[in-house]
């Protein structure tokens, strides 16, 4: 579903992303792991068409993002880092805007979509509140709802559980796991337990390069008995 081949992005003389290649099939949840500044967000931004790669290709559902960016954007649900949203809009207004731009123009259809994601992300109680008045956990959920509104076949989530309390984290993970069966999901995180909890595969990147691409259990088997963060540290330093 999502195919990345030899992606490169350079800022000045720093290689933010240096030749990354991987594929994500439907039903897979790929955990994207790495220290801060390793190139996780940059890779995601290139897949979603927000920034242009210097070399390499990214395709979603067979469409090259460089050739038909809008076609790719139609198939993707994207939660950018820290879930940006228009602060002066209410949750409902914001989601209605997203639904409309996602092509749901009929009032009844639009309403059904908005109601569906409001229920899915437990936002119904704050629907008439402006986004600027929401707590971080709620804002994150608004970002999540926005990414799910068109039931996309591919999801790219940049740190979806960042800033949430343990209960909310658990809730978001359950949500991701429940819908992953028919979607291709990429999520970035630096919480190692999260990877073990929900990911079917894990990619660790350091300084823009992939240093590990395997299942969470294979990662654990690298150093039997060691804690995951020890393995992570050994790979990324």
């Amino acid at each position, binding site marked *: 579903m999502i195919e990345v081949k030899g992606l490169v992005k350079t800022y000045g003389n720093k290689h933010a992303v240096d030749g990354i290649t991987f594929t994500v099939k439907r039903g897979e949840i790929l955990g994207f792991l790495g220290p801060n500044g390793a190139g996780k967000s940059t890779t995601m931004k290139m897949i979603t068409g927000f920034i242009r790669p210097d070399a390499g290709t990214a395709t979603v559902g067979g469409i090259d993002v460089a050739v038909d960016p*809008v076609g790719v*954007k139609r198939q993707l649900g994207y939660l950018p880092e820290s879930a940006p949203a228009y602060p002066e809009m209410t949750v409902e207004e914001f989601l209605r805007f997203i639904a409309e731009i996602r092509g749901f123009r009929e009032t009844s259809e639009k309403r059904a979509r908005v109601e569906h994601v409001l229920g899915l992300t437990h936002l119904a109680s704050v629907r008439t509140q402006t986004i600027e008045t929401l707590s971080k956990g709620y804002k994150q959920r608004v970002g999540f709802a926005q990414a799910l509104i068109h039931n996309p076949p591919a999801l790219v989530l940049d740190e979806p559980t960042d800033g949430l309390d343990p209960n909310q984290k658990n809730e978001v993970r359950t949500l991701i796991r429940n819908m992953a069966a028919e979607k291709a999901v990429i999520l970035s995180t630096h919480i190692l337990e999260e990877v073990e909890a929900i990911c079917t595969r894990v990619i660790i990147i350091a300084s823009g390069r992939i240093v590990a691409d395997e299942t969470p259990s294979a990662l654990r088997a690298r150093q039997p008995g060691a804690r995951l963060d020890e393995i992570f540290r050994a790979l990324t330093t």
Partner: protein
Amino acid sequence: MSQIRPLFKREFLGYFRSPVAYVFLIAFLLISVSLAFSRYGNFFKAGTASLETYFLFFPWLFMFIVPAVGMRLWSEEKRSGTVELLLTLPVTTLEAVLGKFLAGWAFLTLAVLLSFPMALTVAFLGDPDWGIIASTYLGAILMAGAYLGICALTSALTKNQVISFILSLAACAMLVFLGLSSFTTTLESFLPVGIADVVSNFSFVTHFDAFTKGIVDPKDVAFFLSLIGFTLFLNVVALER
């Protein structure tokens, strides 16, 4: 292009979701009307039933007031990170640029049209030439669009609204000053008259003047429209680089 509608709607209503719109509209009407009635405008002393003294200050007023509307168009999105959301929705950069620009332009048009009590006042006091009033309104709206094009462009260059405001103020001021006679005389002192003429032709004042006299010259309309087109093109380039 059907994607422009939701973008336009969000942006236009966005002005009214915060106090910005109300503060802007009230300030704009208050300043423009008081300038007309001031001793510089001489609205009453002029003794004619026309809005000439009211619109006289528009190129100057727009210089400050349009950047206030335009500075947030892209800077705000860049600062808050929503630009990443917006440009990963299924819209082309051109659609996003047009949606935002048209919303801002519609808002400025609303501000200009809300001055209609001035037109009613002159109609009450005398017998104005409605053709001139209509052409002046058309000119003012076109000029507002050209100003806004510049402001949208500078706004796309930075995530800092203050920098965006000052850049667009400087650019707009230049386009106003180019048309002043004192400025053109200075230009003519060291440039051939032909070149000075060309330069002053880029001024907003030169092109707006004709509208206030009731002349809708296709050349003036084309000037404002092509300036809008050019700045929006650069706006797309600035966002895609």
